[in-house]
């Protein structure tokens, strides 16, 4: 998913319209590609209840007709988009509820998890990166690197299982997934910043560690850190799928997992579009903030 470029257009309204149009195109394409993948996957429209030996031949035929896609992919998608314009997100075949209701119930749960993960992940990652960049001895830096490396090596699903086993809050898993990436990028950026000549000069003149960090290193690394913020949002959303599924968190990640297993096309298309929207908005917001912090340079 690419980052949207707003361009150096001086007219803010036109820029905004262009931006909205691009988001719309990306969303439409993202949703359509998602629908295509699900629809073309082997076994779409097949129900395991067909193997129920109590069912008569006519009931099996009825099940097959009910499950089989009776319209083409393009027709399905056109109908879906038309419904979307009227606020109708469709009906979940597996959960037997309107998708709108499912999302309304589950989106806040995921937003809560992702927000907590981002806050904790960033606080931990950035704090350790700052500490590592400023530490005189390498012990803290090595320990933090080791911790981050371990976290990077453990797959999200395994981490989630460990948390379930230890009866720890599942939401923390997302924070532990975000943390090592933040730490590694932030440390590298801060290390580069503190090695710049003017920062070294400030250090030589006796400036305190915190002052160096806040006044010299962070402003230099700021734009890249803001870009990292955008990426971390997408990262947390992506990780929410296995984590919510395994830790029994009733968010949209769990919904996506169940929809994928049950080939629930309508739910999957909606979720694809939500994830696309979040990614595009987060990346664009990060880019905007990054530009603003650089004083509007392009």
């Amino acid at each position, binding site marked *: 998913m690419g980052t949207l470029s707003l361009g150096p257009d001086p007219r803010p309204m036109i820029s905004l319209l262009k931006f909205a149009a691009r988001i719309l195109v990306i969303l439409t394409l993202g949703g359509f590609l998602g629908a295509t993948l699900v629809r073309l996957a*082997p*076994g*779409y429209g*097949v*129900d*395991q*209840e*067909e*193997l*129920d*030996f*109590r*069912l*008569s*031949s*006519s*009931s*099996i*035929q*009825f*099940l097959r007709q009910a499950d089989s896609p009776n319209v083409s992919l393009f027709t399905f998608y056109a109908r879906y988009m038309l419904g979307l314009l009227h606020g109708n997100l469709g009906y*979940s075949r*597996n*959960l*037997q*509820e309107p998708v709108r209701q*499912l999302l309304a*119930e589950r989106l806040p749960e995921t937003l809560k998890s992702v927000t907590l993960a981002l806050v*904790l992940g960033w*606080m*931990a990652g950035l*704090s*350790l990166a700052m*500490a590592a960049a*400023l*530490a*005189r001895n390498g012990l*803290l830096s090595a320990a933090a690197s080791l911790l981050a490396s371990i976290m990077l090596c453990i797959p999200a699903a395994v981490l989630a*299982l460990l948390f*379930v*086993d230890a*009866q*720890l*809050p*599942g939401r*923390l898993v997302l*924070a532990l997934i975000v943390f090592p990436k933040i730490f590694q990028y932030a440390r590298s950026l801060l290390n580069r910043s503190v090695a710049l000549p003017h920062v070294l000069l400030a250090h030589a003149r006796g400036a305190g*560690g915190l002052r160096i960090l806040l006044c010299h290193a962070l402003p230099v690394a700021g734009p890249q850190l803001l870009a990292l913020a955008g990426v971390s949002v997408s990262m947390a959303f992506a990780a929410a799928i296995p984590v919510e*599924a*395994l830790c*029994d968190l*009733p968010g949209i990640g*769990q*919904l996506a*997992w*169940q929809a994928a*297993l*049950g*080939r629930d096309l309508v739910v999957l298309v909606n979720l694809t579009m939500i994830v696309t929207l979040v990614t595009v908005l987060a990346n664009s917001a990060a880019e905007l903030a990054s530009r603003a912090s650089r004083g509007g340079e392009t």
Partner: protein
Amino acid sequence: MKPSFLRFLCVLFLVPLAARAQSAGHPANQLRFCITSQPKTFDPQLVTDDASETIRYLTGGVLVRLNRSTQQLEPALATSWQVDRSGRTIRFVLRHDIYFSDGTPFSAADVAWTMQRLMNPALHSPAGDAFRSGEGRVVTQVIGKDRIAVTFPRPVVGLARLFDQVAIMSASSPHGGMAVLGPYCLAKNKAGSWLLLKRNPHYWKRDTAGHPLPYIDSVRIDVEPNRDIEVLRFLHGDIDFINSVDAMDYDRLKARAPSTAIDAGPSLDSEQVWFNQVPGAPLPAYKKAWFASTDFRRAISESIDRQALARVVFRGHAHPAISWISPADKYWFNARLSPHPFDPHGALRLLAQDGFQLRNGALYDRGGHVVEFSVITNAGNLYREQMATMIQQDLAGIGIRLRIVTLDFASLIERITRTFDYEACLLGLVNDELDPDAQMNVWLSSAENHQWNPSQKTPATSWEAEIDRLMRAQASTSDLSRRKAEVDRVQEIVFEQEPFIYLVNKDALSAVSTRLRNVRPSVLRPQIYWNIDELWLDASGGGKR
């Protein structure tokens, strides 16, 4: 670095990690367990999946109930019943002063309405299909408020037993299908996450001391597709039982909490492998000829070490399968059949009769084709994957190369029911029915679930024609000894022809918390909570079950 900054970092990491999961305080008298998926329907007549069946069992009131322990029918909403000589009509005498969960009175009119709806062909109810023995209308005759006769167009074997699956619905309740007669009623459904059932305040049953049943106030059912997580939650005491655990988890539970693991003995379920014999399947002609050969199928069967499958794959919690009826079904199993031998030399002799030759460790057919084929099974089922691997080794012993292909379940079903693009398939049959008549849709050659060659216009082989005749004959008489003789003969034909190569019958394994009392595990589903209204929770936990 200042100590205060270090303290801040410590707090940042340790506080959240130390925070234990805030398990929402569970009500003391609430039973908790998991199902693997969201129920597809709450309409008791349209149940096709296990999750919906669970809800139907817990909420639906039935006229007669099969005692899963004694395997005998017991009165429920009907105090007595009688099937007439023709096997077409059943008469019920109903209980008085019974009310649905919403307070609507129950009467014979509700039974009539339920049966008419159930038997409506347009509804396509699996429970209704079980009653469908011939064309024609079902006639319900209400004989007063508490008596009803139901007449079917043709005799229905095991007629009374089928009513165990029929949840009576209200003909007049404003709440429609949500008004129930079972021990619980649905209070909340968080789709895909959990369901909450509350005690039905109008449930009819009382214990011997006259106390109203059920004892447990509410049932929380969590939707948990991951079996590993389910086991972890059980070990943490977060759920009270696991209705069906697999062999590996059973051993794990037995080691960690011996009193919670229950092996109720061989179940009715079986694992089997079959060859694709569909004439139009996209397979080379020489392979179709192999699969159609009885000698070939029997040779494959004889080269499989079923004892080893039971011992290694199922850790001793399974038994070599003999017939399509499990030995657990004591009445219908044909005890004259002896276990299939593990005899690779005998298998090679059978293959030689068909012109196969073993040369340099590889088997060749008459036309010089190397004998190799693939078996498909569902991905993620560790036991089937392990069985396939052991079969692969067994077949290598007679020079056959077996390729194992694991597929997502939906893709697998697509192949075995629509495209027929497969050579052999390894799958299981989940069975709850003691009466073999329930498997008519497997054994009739015209049936969709006649997996090796479904929906035949006329039987492809003489032995399939004979099975058709015998299955139809047993379905048309209520003479039990005659039916037994005919079903025994079908078992013998299947034993000889091996269209399905039966591998093992798994044991019914469960896990039950020691705080759940009055549990009487059964091999029939639902193994643990079939007597849900008599179960109770002991707050003190330990002790004997």
